[in-house]
């Protein structure tokens, strides 16, 4: 290994100027990052030149990785975990010597591990770029990567995977309930309707009370002091860990440029960002668009190996395998996170309890004022992320994570089994699973702005996926309710049931209630009297009048808090918006039986409003 320092060597080779070296060294005093990475991030050197220079300084040959260079059988003898941990891929083995490619200087522990796996062999190291090393891993372990990303959770604990949609007891319960209902309708239709109506009405009431309680608790959460700009400014950037950003992208060529721009604007040392763009194999257009957007040196491209189900959580699991950060966050392609978000998440983790595994940032929409649908969607998100989730946090109830902007401790996430690729709301599922395992999810006062769906069809597709995912999550965690209660307690179990189970149920029941109400208003028929005895009638009216008024009122405050004053009156139109939810819920219910893992893709890039709107 040469004694000359990297910076001096690069200047000597005229690969960088002295001025550039000085700039990078200055940056290094601020963030403490390695010089080579800093030079890359600052754009002062090409990745290839840097790798070749490092190879020279370390005294190893340089290698370019391609499919022919990697012998998968040799590589696969070195376990994937070890490969990822040491960032080293054995590519050839001639019986005497094993050739191993690395991107960092090999240390003693790597040598010892190789000695165990390839006993008696000489080891020859070759240096390559970070990108080529990732490519080598992907080539060598393609099958393993696919299996881990799809079945990792299932093999770890089948009971927590949505791979099995209904367990046998659930099927039997469902079948018995159906037969009982059919029999009831045949023999005593009115009594059956009454028997159905009583628990439904009581459940509605419980959900109304629960959401009001949580919403008001969430509203009062703002009286707690959140992270301030002063606290963020006081962070010593040298202490900041590497932060991985996973961006699963599929057919998002239209918005990828904007995403990269927002990621560049994050207030976090660029050299400590590890951005992984996760493409699908059948989507070369988005890859091309990403390359055209000239991503920084801290951006890595990954092509997720094809294999069913082709879902976002599967892509995220691939990203999780390769992520190098201590912390990790998911962003969608159309996301515009507030610049301070990563630092806030970091501080929250620093100050939070040991079992804090994830913090969720708020989501909201930059095209909130585009049309009726985007306004209503914004009302809903303002309530959900500004009131409901903080309320759940305050009350220590399980928090279903939002689709993006959830920040994790990467290793704990791996221990939890990552995302469930068979669950189409893998985020909500993960939040509940974390609670099941004794972890906490928290909330931070930072927002990621997204693009609200502006088209009804697109909205229903997206929403049907979300509701289907809630159904899957409810089914997964209700497989053994006693176990759930034993692990998380009665309060959390009830919270889970009312939120995750209750949300789809309410939307499924709602149209029936509306139809009955309209029939009664128009005809004033007495036919419905037997199924609405006085106490049921009063509770139904309470749900209809007080429940809806409370929901609307709290929603008004949620947008008021966001200073979206124009939307306050739009909250009155929520009942019409909820009808759309019901349509989506029935679509979701159908798909739960026919295509449970199918990922209803949401089209982005339809808005005419920019992120700054």
């Amino acid at each position, binding site marked *: 290994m040469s004694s000359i320092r990297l910076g001096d060597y690069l200047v000597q080779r005229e690969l960088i100027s002295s001025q550039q070296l000085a700039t990078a060294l200055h940056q290094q005093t601020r963030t403490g990052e390695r010089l080579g990475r800093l030079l890359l991030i600052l754009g002062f050197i090409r990745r290839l030149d840097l790798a070749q220079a490092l190879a020279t300084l370390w005294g190893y040959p340089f290698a370019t990785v391609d499919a022919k260079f990697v012998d998968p059988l040799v590589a696969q003898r070195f376990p994937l975990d070890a490969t990822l941990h040491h960032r080293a891929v054995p590519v050839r083995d001639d019986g005497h010597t094993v050739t191993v490619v690395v991107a960092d200087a090999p240390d003693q522990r790597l040598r010892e591990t190789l000695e165990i796996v390839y006993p008696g062999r000489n080891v020859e190291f070759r240096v390559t770029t970070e990108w080529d090393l990732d490519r080598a891993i992907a080539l060598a372990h393609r099958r393993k990567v696919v299996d881990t990303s799809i079945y990792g959770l299932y093999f770890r604990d089948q009971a927590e995977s949505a791979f099995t949609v209904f367990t046998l007891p659930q099927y039997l319960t469902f079948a018995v309930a159906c037969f009982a209902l059919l029999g009831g309708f045949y023999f005593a239709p009115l009594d059956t309707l009454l028997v159905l109506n009583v628990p439904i009405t009581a459940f509605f009431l419980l959900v109304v009370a629960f959401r009001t309680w949580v919403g008001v608790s969430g509203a009062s959460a703002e009286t*707690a002091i959140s992270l301030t700009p002063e606290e963020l400014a006081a962070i010593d950037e040298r202490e900041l860990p590497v932060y991985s950003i996973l961006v699963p992208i599929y057919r998002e060529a239209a918005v990828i440029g904007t995403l990269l721009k927002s990621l560049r604007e994050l207030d976090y040392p660029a050299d400590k960002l590890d951005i992984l763009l996760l493409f699908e194999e059948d989507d070369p257009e988005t890859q091309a668009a990403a390359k055209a957007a000239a991503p920084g040196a801290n951006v890595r491209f990954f092509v997720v190996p094809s294999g069913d189900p082709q879902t976002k959580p599967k892509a995220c699991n691939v990203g999780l395998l390769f992520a190098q950060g201590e912390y990790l966050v998911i962003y969608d392609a159309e996301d515009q996170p507030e610049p301070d978000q990563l630092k806030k998440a970091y501080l929250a983790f620093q100050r*939070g309890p040991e079992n804090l595994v994830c913090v969720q940032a708020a989501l909201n929409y930059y095209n909130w004022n585009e049309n009726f649908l985007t306004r209503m969607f914004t009302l809903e998100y303002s309530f959900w992320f500004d009131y409901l989730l903080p309320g759940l946090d305050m009350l220590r109830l399980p928090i279903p994570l939002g689709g993006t902007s959830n920040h994790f401790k990467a290793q704990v996430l791996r221990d939890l089994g990552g995302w469930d690729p068979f669950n189409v709301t893998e985020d909500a599922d993960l939040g509940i699973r974390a609670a099941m395992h004794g972890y906490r999810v928290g909330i931070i006062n930072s927002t990621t702005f997204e693009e609200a769906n502006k088209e009804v069809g697109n909205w229903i597709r997206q929403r049907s996926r979300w509701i289907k995912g809630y159904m899957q999550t409810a089914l997964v965690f209700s497989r053994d309710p006693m176990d759930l209660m034993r692990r998380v307690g009665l309060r959390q179990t009830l919270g889970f049931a009312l939120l995750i189970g209750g949300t789809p149920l309410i939307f499924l029941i709602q149209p029936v209630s509306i139809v009955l109400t309209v029939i009664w208003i128009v005809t004033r028929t007495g036919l419905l009297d037997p199924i609405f005895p006085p106490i049921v009638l009063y509770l139904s009216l309470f749900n209809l009048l007080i429940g809806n008024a409370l929901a609307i009122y709290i929603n008004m405050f949620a947008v008021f808090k966001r200073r979206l004053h124009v939307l306050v009156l739009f909250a009155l139109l929520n009942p019409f918006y909820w009808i759309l939810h019901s349509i989506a819920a029935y679509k979701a219910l159908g798909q739960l039986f026919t295509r449970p893992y199918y990922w209803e893709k949401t089209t982005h890039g339809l808005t005419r409003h920019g992120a700054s709107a």
Partner: protein
Amino acid sequence: MVSPVTAPRRRVVAPYWVRTLLASAAAAPLLVASLMLAQSGYLSDTHGAFLSRVLFALDRGQLELLGFEYPPLPFLMLLPWPTVTLAIIFGALAIFSLAWLVLNDCTMRRSILPFVLLLGALWSPIGLHLVASDFNEAVGLFALYGGWRHYRRWWETRKTIHGLYTGLWLGVAFYTSPLGLGLALIAGAVLPLLFPRLQIPPFASQLVLLVFPGIAATATWAYLSWVFTQRVAFPFAAWEPHSPGFVQIVSWTVPYLLVAFFSLLRPKATTAGVLLPFVLLLGANRVGWHFSLAFAVVLLTLVAIIAIPPDLDRSQRALLGGAAVAQALVAWVLVPWPHTTTEDIVSRTVATALAPAPARSILLDDRYATRLLKWAPSLAPYLTTRDTGFEVALAEPRAVVDYVVVTPDGDGLSLDADVRPPAGFQVDWNWGGYILYRRPGAPRLPVRFDRLLVDQPVQP
């Protein structure tokens, strides 16, 4: 929020036990006096009306039989245990809670003056009305003051949670008095005074947030009345038969007038907030939103408490405190105490006599029997205008009921029953303005004339 949380700013408050003790001291005399009055046979018309409607709804098992009379909250509160004792307890609890909040203000301002002003209004025959005669108004005052406190914190901290609580409290207040909506409108109207640079969208949205609960409550009540009665009830008929006039209010709100005067000497935009509730009371009176003198006095006293200028000198403070004490003393002398009337004793005696009758066996036009019904321990014996079968019974009483009662309040039955017995009935007794007709063969329902504390039975 997760950890990133530092402790919120601590507010100075008196120790829990001190507040409990003082708030109890404020409410206890009213509670004791009211219970003693009830023991002596006093039941206000308002409490009697609440109780009779609740008893009726409970007996028939249909809440809608409360009749969609406004305000609904007192009826709902009395449902679990419809007795005058519970009404009094609720009134005392509301006064206790109100005093608690005022004591909170006292500790924040480090002054006992607000509490003295409150006691000056409460500890008199005027204040006694809120517990002994109309607990609903006490609950309303508590809700209004609770709403105000959050409104002030909303204004001071800009935290939306206080806006939410303001609206909810005003919504509760609206279920006790339509003035809740009026005060919400005032709270909204003065927003530009509190936020001088407030633009139209935020002003409009805050106004909506303040009045929405009241409007939603109105709409709810209207819809419910339509569902159950097929006509929309306008919820502005108050239980108080009439409101005090301008002079009467002014005479019994001297501390308020003094505070208003002191405020006018230090004119600020918010001074309007001191005067508007008074205007609201006068306006409400005109549109028929009736309220008692006690309600007006305590409401304006609360406004005075809120608006006491912080820079009053010692003599001005002494003047205010002295005025409150003097007002209470004068009220003790000049304002008549609640008492039991002869009509009440007669009605109670009759109601007791009729109580053993079988269910729906007494035909009664409840629209003209307020005084009788307020004393009825149960509404089970009566077949009233709100019962199915009333019209049939009216056409052919002997086929449906055993008794027919005519009250001193009016005939109402369209049977000429005040003139002659309905066909098939005979006079069982005729006393104190009440006539009981009995179908021959039906058991007698003798009235205990000795219950009347006069020498001779009242003869018609």
